[in-house]
């Protein structure tokens, strides 16, 4: 039988010394475009532990130093997709990035690229949500699985495998903010929307493939991806939008039915 021993007092004090809070400098990009206020950095000294996340550091600022910092967050556990921002130049979820993994005493946080800024770190998601909806992100079919005669639709593990990773998307927008096409093409659907189009096209219960392929086959649709692959690099949920785009192209080029 396994015996779990309580830590001896000496070990406990040891743990305390290694967990001494460190102090880092947090630089937050501040701007308020609606008031014509240009971006400038505010700097704060923050005590951090090994486990402190970037979001916790920002919330420390709001609680103790400057409550006016604008930041969007909710779940604090990488599931709501609210806290995307640029952390030391790289798009990431603030709640899912520990200060200790950044290997730097200076942490710079900025709003995501390729989104209109509302204020400070909060950006406008209108276009992302609109593009997501344009992809018809739901199963399309005439019959319903709830009639008394019909059974539930069979889906084998292999069928599920085809789209499962794409269903993990939390609409955080990090992929869109990393995409070089989105930087100049404001009408581009973007990796988030295209990955969702694939998620439903590849679902064997869905009958809306032709509809969706028509929507993405546009002058600002799927063909404006040039396979930089940055979207897949930054996704915190393991979604690979760049692959979804290539697989969708397979349908449009006639390699896949």
């Amino acid at each position: 039988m396994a015996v779990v021993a309580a830590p001896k007092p000496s070990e406990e004090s040891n743990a305390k010394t290694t967990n001494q809070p460190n102090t880092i400098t947090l630089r937050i990009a501040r701007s308020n475009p609606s008031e014509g206020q240009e971006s400038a950095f505010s700097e704060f000294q923050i005590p951090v532990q090994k486990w402190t996340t970037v979001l916790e550091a920002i919330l420390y600022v709001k609680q103790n130093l400057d409550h006016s910092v604008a930041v969007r967050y909710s779940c604090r556990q990488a599931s709501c997709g609210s806290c995307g921002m640029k952390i030391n130049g790289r798009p990431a979820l603030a709640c899912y990035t520990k200060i200790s993994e950044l290997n730097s005493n200076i942490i710079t946080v900025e709003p995501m690229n390729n989104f209109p800024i509302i204020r400070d770190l909060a950006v406008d998601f209108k276009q992302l949500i609109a593009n997501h909806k344009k992809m018809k992100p739901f199963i399309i079919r005439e019959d319903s699985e709830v009639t008394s005669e019909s059974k539930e639709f069979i889906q084998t593990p292999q069928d599920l495998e085809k789209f499962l990773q794409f269903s993990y998307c939390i609409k955080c927008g990090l992929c869109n903010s990393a995409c070089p096409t989105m930087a100049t093409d404001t009408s581009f659907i973007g990796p988030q929307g295209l990955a969702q189009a694939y998620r439903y096209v590849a679902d064997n219960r869905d009958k809306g493939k032709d509809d969706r392929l028509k929507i993405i086959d546009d002058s600002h649709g799927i063909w404006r991806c040039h396979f930089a692959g940055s979207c897949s690099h930054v996704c915190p949920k393991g979604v690979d939008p760049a692959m979804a785009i290539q697989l969708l192209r397979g349908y449009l080029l006639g390699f896949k039915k």
Partner: protein
Amino acid sequence: MRESIIMKIHYGTALGAVALVAVHILMRMSQKFSDSLQYQNVIANYHFLPYALMLEAVLILLSVHGFNGLRVILLELKQGSTYEKMINYGSLAAMAALIAYGSRTILMAGMGVS
């Protein structure tokens, strides 16, 4: 035209150009490079009908591919319906103009009007 059809043409012209430009380069290697630029040799190329037709094909493939590529770059650079219409028709016009000008050279040299 559907964007997927345009892009099929874009990839197709690229592949076609790879094949024909390879033939073009091989023909150049059949003699010393400096000789291939001799007046008589250049004119002889245009008088050899299959080769002149191939040059015409390369001209068409690369004009279509190049100006469609430029159209894509410009559409990604700036958006707006008037601007995009201008770019779409402008690149078609540029393709046609380059093909017409190049064909004129090939035709004149081929007929000995030079």
